[in-house]
């Protein structure tokens, strides 16, 4: 029972972690909260759903959704953040403009798809059950976990070992120093938005598949959790956000067993609150993005 719930927590936590990794990446580089992240998460789920309903394979829908999400992220930066950056508008105004962008995106999706819950075809989700000792799950659960972990590993590799990753970290650490070393700041920020939004979009597709429910307001349910998780991880620390995502997933599923499902969010946020009381800087503190 406990092992099963731990496993469920890890399946759930992986998508939280993926969502939060993108959220934290943008915060780490720009010191702004991108409150449109959850709307891109939602759009990507619809993109994938639409492609699958048109008869194409799921993997194709997933990849296209990732790219579309990344491109929307780049547009988001151009529309909502770049003009403010040029005017040195600080960190609060971009918060508002990102909310504005999210509202527009949600209105568009609502206009196209309506307010009803949409489902993937059952055939997409049917998969043989597997068991590992006392834990049972399906191949489909495993594929979602695998996709989330693979994307996080790719992110870690890009950040550590490639020129793009070094440029992003350089801009995060000191924008002027980076520019003086020849880094194109605006291009690097656009790439950051592409990567972060593609990760957020991937999380949207995976969550839509996990619950088999895609709705125009599905972003709202994860937005606050994502925010809590990046604070828990240490604002701007991508590794911390990933750890925070798993902690939240496991806490939620354990809360369901030991306290009752109506207490799930209260317990999860209570545990996060306690961790932050003990470690106000978050699990890893700001520093970790820089090395991860």
């Amino acid at each position: 029972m406990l092992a099963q719930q731990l496993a469920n927590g890890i399946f759930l936590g992986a998508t939280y972690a993926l969502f939060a990794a993108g959220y934290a990446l943008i915060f780490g580089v720009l010191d702004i909260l991108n409150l449109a992240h959850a709307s891109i998460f939602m759009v990507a789920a619809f993109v994938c759903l639409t492609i699958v309903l048109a008869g194409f394979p799921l993997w194709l829908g997933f990849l296209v959704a990732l790219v579309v999400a990344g491109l929307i992220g780049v547009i988001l930066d151009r529309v909502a953040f770049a003009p403010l950056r040029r005017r040195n508008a600080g960190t609060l105004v971009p918060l508002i403009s990102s909310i504005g962008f999210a509202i527009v995106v949600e209105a568009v999706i609502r206009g196209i798809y309506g307010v009803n819950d949409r489902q993937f075809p059952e055939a997409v989700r049917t998969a043989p059950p597997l068991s590992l000792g006392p834990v049972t799950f399906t191949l489909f659960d495993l594929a979602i976990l695998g996709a989330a972990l693979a994307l996080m590993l790719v992110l870690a590799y890009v950040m550590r070992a490639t020129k793009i990753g070094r440029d992003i970290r350089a801009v995060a650490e000191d924008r002027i120093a980076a520019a003086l070393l020849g880094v194109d700041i605006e291009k690097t920020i656009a790439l950051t938005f592409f990567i972060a939004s593609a990760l957020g979009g991937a999380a949207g597709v995976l969550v839509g598949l996990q619950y088999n429910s895609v709705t125009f307001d599905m972003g709202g349910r994860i937005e606050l959790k994502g925010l809590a998780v990046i604070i828990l991880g240490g604002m701007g620390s991508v590794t911390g956000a990933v750890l925070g995502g798993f902690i939240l997933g496991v806490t939620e599923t354990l809360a369901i067993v030991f306290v009752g499902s109506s207490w799930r969010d209260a317990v999860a946020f209570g545990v996060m609150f306690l961790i932050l009381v003990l470690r106000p800087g978050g699990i890893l503190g700001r520093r970790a993005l820089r090395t991860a």
Partner: protein
Amino acid sequence: MALLEIDGLVAGYGKIEVLHGVSLALDEGSLCAIVGANGAGKTTLLRAISAIVPKSGGRVRFAGSEIGALPTHAIVRRGLAHVPEGRRMLPYMTVEENLLVASAIRRDGRAPIARDIATIFERFPILGARRSVAAGSLSGGEQQVLAMARAIVARPRALLLDEPSMGLAPKLVAQVFEIVREERARGSSILLVEQNARAALSLADRAYVLERGRIVLEGTGAELLTREDVTAAYLGG
């Protein structure tokens, strides 16, 4: 024609004008020193050349073309490296990563860059020994050497150095000036801002005195060293 030519440069912060029409020239292969009191605008001048501070007037020409409208990274990629005041490390990145970021503007491929980084580690053993350490954990002197090494590894056509000896112990000051001398001997063109005016002037082919945002005096380094008013004001008598 000079490699770097600045003509009537006006710049400042917001409404505050700091530079009121500065003109100077840096010849290819020469070292040009700028001295002046605290707050005269020396840092602002270098920042305006590199487009960190916006220019509101004047022209900047580098290697035969106008660079006044280019963004910072494009200016650096043309071959104008700027070692800023305060060294500005990428503090959580390693020494080697700092050099990799700086060398990424080169177009000659990975192998020559790797060779140059290896050469840098031989030339500056304090960096070689700490290549995998976070740059922010280096001492002030080591950080200054790394800041200069970052510029050198980019193979620039000209170097802007903003008070490279600031805040360093005398032994390290000597080492920093040794690097400046070596770079000059290799044929680099250098624009050097220094509070250590005597050392700067004695190296300089040409020198300018900046006072409250204006060039008030210019001449060869040797000429300014013999001027009593200059020595009294900037060399402590």
